[in-house]
């Protein structure tokens, strides 16, 4: 052993170093993909929703700050998307149906934001709204016409959108819950409907004090 103490020490050190590398590289074994790292970081930072101008399916134009005082359940979509978005919206509809009616419109609004303003004009959004049977009031579909504002929002909320060159986009998806003051409160896995609905209901329950 004494003859080879350096080698033994080196083994010990390299194992330690390896573990440190993995610990640091995965936020303490929590995040193995950039997506989970993003969620983790978002929840730590809790960014404020920038004051963007929305144009919804009814052609109304207003700024995000109008929603102040209500929780907002958010998704990011584009209507010509054929894979993730329909699923995302279908799941959102299910969450919507699981939230008690009394809160809807009063304490919480649902909002699907399109990041493809060029194609998703008012008419297209209206069609999309009908497809998912949203009422256009308590669950709105809207676009952000100003590209700079849109980019800023996507950046703040860590949404990465890559055009695939054939008119589609690849993007990461999740449910976002923004609190009454406009700060991000939760990021939820959109495939786990029950879990997401639970989180929303619990948050509201704690907040409204019921």
């Amino acid at each position, binding site marked *: 052993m004494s003859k080879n103490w350096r080698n033994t020490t080196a083994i010990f050190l390299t194992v330690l170093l390896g573990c440190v590398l993995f610990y640091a590289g995965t936020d303490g*074994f929590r995040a*193995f*993909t950039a*997506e*989970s790292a993003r969620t983790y970081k978002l929840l730590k930072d809790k960014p404020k929703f920038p004051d963007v101008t929305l144009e919804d399916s009814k052609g109304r134009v207003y700024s995000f700050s109008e929603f102040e005082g209500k929780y907002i359940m958010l998704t990011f979509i584009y209507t010509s998307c054929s894979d993730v978005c329909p699923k995302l919206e279908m799941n959102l509809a299910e969450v919507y149906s699981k939230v008690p009616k009394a809160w809807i419109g009063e304490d919480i609004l649902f909002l699907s934001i399109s990041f493809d303003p060029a194609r998703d004009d008012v008419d297209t959004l209206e069609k999309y709204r009908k497809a998912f049977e949203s009422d256009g009031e308590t669950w709105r579909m809207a676009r952000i016409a100003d590209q700079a504002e849109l980019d800023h929002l996507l950046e703040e909320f860590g949404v990465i959108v890559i055009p695939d060159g054939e008119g589609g986009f690849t993007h990461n998806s999740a449910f976002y819950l923004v609190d009454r003051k406009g700060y991000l409160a939760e990021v939820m*896995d959109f*495939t786990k409907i029950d879990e997401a609905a639970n989180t929303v209901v619990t948050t509201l329950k704690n907040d409204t004090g019921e």
Partner: protein
Amino acid sequence: MVTTINKGEFKSRNNLIATYLIIGGLVIAAMMVFGILMLLAQGGVLDLPPAAFYQFLTIHGTGMIGGAALAASAVMWYFLSNYVELSKKVFKLNLILSLIGVVMVIIGVFSFKYASAWTFLYPLPALSGGAWGVTGALLYLVGMLILGVGFLLLYIDTGRAIIKKHGSLGKGLGWDVISGKRAEKDAPSPTVVASTMVTIVNVSALTTGATVLIMNIINVVNPAFTFDPLLAKNLTYAFGHIFANSIIYMGVIAVYEILPRYTNRPWKSNRPFLIAWTMSTAFTLVIYTHHMLMDSVMPKWMLIMGQVLSYANGLPVLVITAYGALMIVYKSGVKWDMASGLIFLSMFGWVVGVVPAIVDATIVVNHVMHNTKWVPGHFHMYMGLGAVVMIFGFIYYLSKVDSSLQTNGLDKVGFISYTLGIISVSVGFLISGALSTPRRWATHFPEWMAPAVFGAIGGVLAVVGLTIFIIHFIRYVKVRGTAGSDLNEQKLA
């Protein structure tokens, strides 16, 4: 062949072998107790909460396979080291890693309520319905991985040693003799052939197992990563089937080595023998699909191959090994004692266990017997009456050649008690299977209870027998080396 091994080295080798066997034997005995408790619960005699039952189920399967594999690898190592140069360091390392793995598995199961059965079918480890958490699953899966690493190192070493001595694994299986390039008299010994087979199948199994274990670990840590469940099932059964099967292929080395010494008739590798072992190698690798006969989404040809090759896999043992053992014993004037008796019994156990296995591998039968207790019926027969008996036969052999310890009437009682016990357990299972009793159920409907109780009583008999065997072995360990010469084994015949 043993001339180069000096006395001291011989002794320390036997020390290690004895440690392996004691741990293996005790684990097997402890697992039998869990087995009895489960049968009692199913028989309605014992009020066991389902959570405890499924934890017992998990530990019983894992422990039996682990303990028996450990002990059987000691049998293989003991005899193989007479032919090729094995690394004792690796052998020791395997023991240490196995113990670490076992401890993790035990903590995972009993402290963290992990109960996925030893098959840990994806995605069950991650989706327990709230029964266990990430910690338990990780302890179990990582424990299994560490166990696997130990065994993998052991088989890499046997493979290395065989290649060094014989040139290649193909030559270890005697392919050059089969093709006629080498004379039959220069063929590798049965021990080397069997060890080569085990090396090939287990390195494949353990590599596959590592893949599927890590896959499960990833899924447990981050459920967003999902995998194809059918592929996962294929890999899991490929690993489980091969590894469990390899136990008997390691154990049979004891038969090849011990029977000839008792009967004074040589057991040499000839061409049919070598062909049979090459067949076993190939079939063992591919017939796991008979575990998936009830997955009709599998390609149909794979399922049909599952039946056909499972039938064919019976041939090597039925035509070569068992037949050879019978020929060697027939009119040989063999002196029956515990060792030779157990070895002969083990061949019987293996062959008799093959019958219900082949029956169940028939697709139309499997359609109404898959996952009934028929399945444990067949493998309790050939593991309990075959593989485990080979191990204990070896234990009695070792204590005979390495000490002056005598067997007595009690050992005979043990022999009879164990044999009757395991037969009762297996027959109990088979009858349950014929009655459509599902396997792995914490409770039974009243009409299914009687055979379970019968099996439990058989289990008690078997544990009594096994305890007698273990006591004998522990007595041997205490007086080891008293036969005067450690090299006694060469003179036995």
